[in-house]
């Protein structure tokens, strides 16, 4: 899976390079989580993206579209060449995830803070229809400043949505700077614990840790799960990692793409 994650990183950067600029930081930080989800845990079928009873993923931080598209293309939902159409007029791969455009995308997002509520609705739907599906949701640390995240969290715990596995991409950065400077979450683990979640805090860029944490979360009963992914924004490519605070959205030229390909060989 480490090799797959590296390939998905390269595809993500290629995808962004095709339009010259994009949300590289928040895309690269979740590649390891996406890899483990799609290549180990999620019950999905790329030939039948709308399969009944499938596990679903809501990428609530919808601006991470390029990483999601790279993962879906790698998994075979659509040809890798299509990654070159990112954000071009008429594309099926818009900058923010859209369930009506991209095969394999389970929920539309882009206005931050709404996806976790959508995931709660899906988890509830799965319980009602008794299909034993797991609903995964990835939210941003900046995104968690939205009040709706906490409304959804209260709801999930009160309704014992133990089929809901939430991952916080705790990359410590948001658009204008460090999350702790913009508006601190203090200790996210304690917050979600107090909201009634089963919380695990791990290295979110370590494939094995992510894998273990998801396995634990699936076995946990009676509570929704929160996996705090401690990640690095822009992870895996020196250009974006080193840009730090400025890596939310970056230009990717042909030379930079070449550099990425060499680093990620």
């Amino acid at each position, binding site marked *: 899976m480490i090799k797959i994650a590296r390939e998905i990183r390269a595809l993500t950067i290629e995808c962004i390079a095709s339009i010259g600029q994009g949300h590289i930081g928040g895309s690269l930080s979740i590649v390891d989580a996406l890899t483990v989800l799609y290549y180990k845990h999620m019950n999905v079928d790329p030939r039948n993206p709308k399969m009944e009873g499938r596990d679903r993923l809501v990428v609530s931080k919808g601006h991470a579209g390029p990483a999601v598209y790279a993962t879906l293309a790698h998994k075979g939902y659509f040809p890798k060449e299509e990654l070159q159409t990112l954000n071009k007029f008429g594309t099926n791969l818009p900058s923010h995830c859209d369930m009506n455009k991209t095969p394999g995308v389970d929920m539309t997002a882009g*206005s931050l803070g709404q996806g976790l509520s959508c995931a709660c609705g899906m988890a509830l739907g799965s319980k009602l229809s008794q299909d034993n599906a797991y609903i995964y949701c990835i939210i941003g640390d900046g995104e968690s400043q939205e009040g709706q995240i906490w409304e959804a969290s209260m709801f999930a715990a009160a309704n014992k949505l133990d089929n809901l596995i939430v991952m916080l991409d705790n990359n410590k950065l948001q658009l204008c700077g460090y999350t702790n400077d913009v508006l601190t979450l203090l200790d996210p683990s304690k917050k979600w614990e107090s909201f009634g979640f089963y919380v695990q805090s791990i290295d979110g860029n370590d494939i094995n840790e992510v894998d273990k944490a998801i396995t634990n979360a699936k076995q946990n009963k009676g509570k929704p799960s929160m996996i705090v992914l401690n990640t690095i924004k822009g992870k895996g490519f020196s250009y974006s990692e080193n840009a730090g605070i400025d890596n939310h959205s970056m230009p990717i030229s042909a030379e930079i793409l070449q550099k990425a390909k060499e680093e990620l060989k």
Partner: protein
Amino acid sequence: MEFRKVLCNELSALMKENEKIVILDADLAKPDGIYPLFVEFPNRCFQVGIAEANMASICAGLSAYGYLPVMVTFAPFATRRVFDQIAVSIAYAKQRVIIVGTDPGITAELNGGTHMSFEDVTIMRSIPDMVIYDAVDDVQLGQAIKQLINLDKNVYIRMPRKVRPTVFNENYKYEYGKADLLKVGTDITIAATGTMVYEALEAAKLLEEDGINAEVISVNTIKPIDKDMILESVKKTNCVVTCENNNINGGLYSVISEILCSNYPAICGAIGIYDEFGQVGKYSDLLEAYHLTPKDIVKKVKEVIKKK
């Protein structure tokens, strides 16, 4: 000049004159161009995080304390995302806040459908006494900000972030509540707002080649609208085409139709978004996709003239 640069410069000047002005941001200060204000006035600029609803009601509280808050974020998050907070905490409670929504409609470009507000004018218009200003160019925006901030009203400023073609020259004088007559004509009135004013002027040039003499009005504030200028023009031309970067349902087309309906019935055609959602694309792609180009305006003008 970039519109966001104009916004930042004007706010900086106004903050020096009026110490009651405070700035609120929801993690978009950098792309919205107002980050320099956080450096210049660190005690009067507040970062609320990605929490627009909270920001709108915080503004109401600051207003209740005698401050004049200016909240800035992308147009959809400045309006639809916080509509109840604006309606109740701000407007109904009779507090005063300046709301700046950036990259409205197709100027959201590559941010795509979720960020492409085609309804902001429509919904904001439904709040009693809300002023709605749709920026035409950098020259006008600079002057307008000054006047709008000093009104004793809630104001929604709708503006692109980056560069758009300049329409007005350096002698231009913006006057709050007044429209601008940009081209005198006799065959049809073209009433446009925001970035569509430029497209309307281009259309008028094309029409000239076809022997059609169009009058072009830049509407500036959609609310309050300069009813007198519009009626005066239509009494001469007897037909109108409206041009807007918003859903025609409830936008400029509706406003002008309402005026005509109760004062001087005349045929009115619409250039704008025909009840659709946004999508990713460059400005020029989107102009074509939603039939907003000068050529589309020309076509609409001819259709309307035939019916009059």
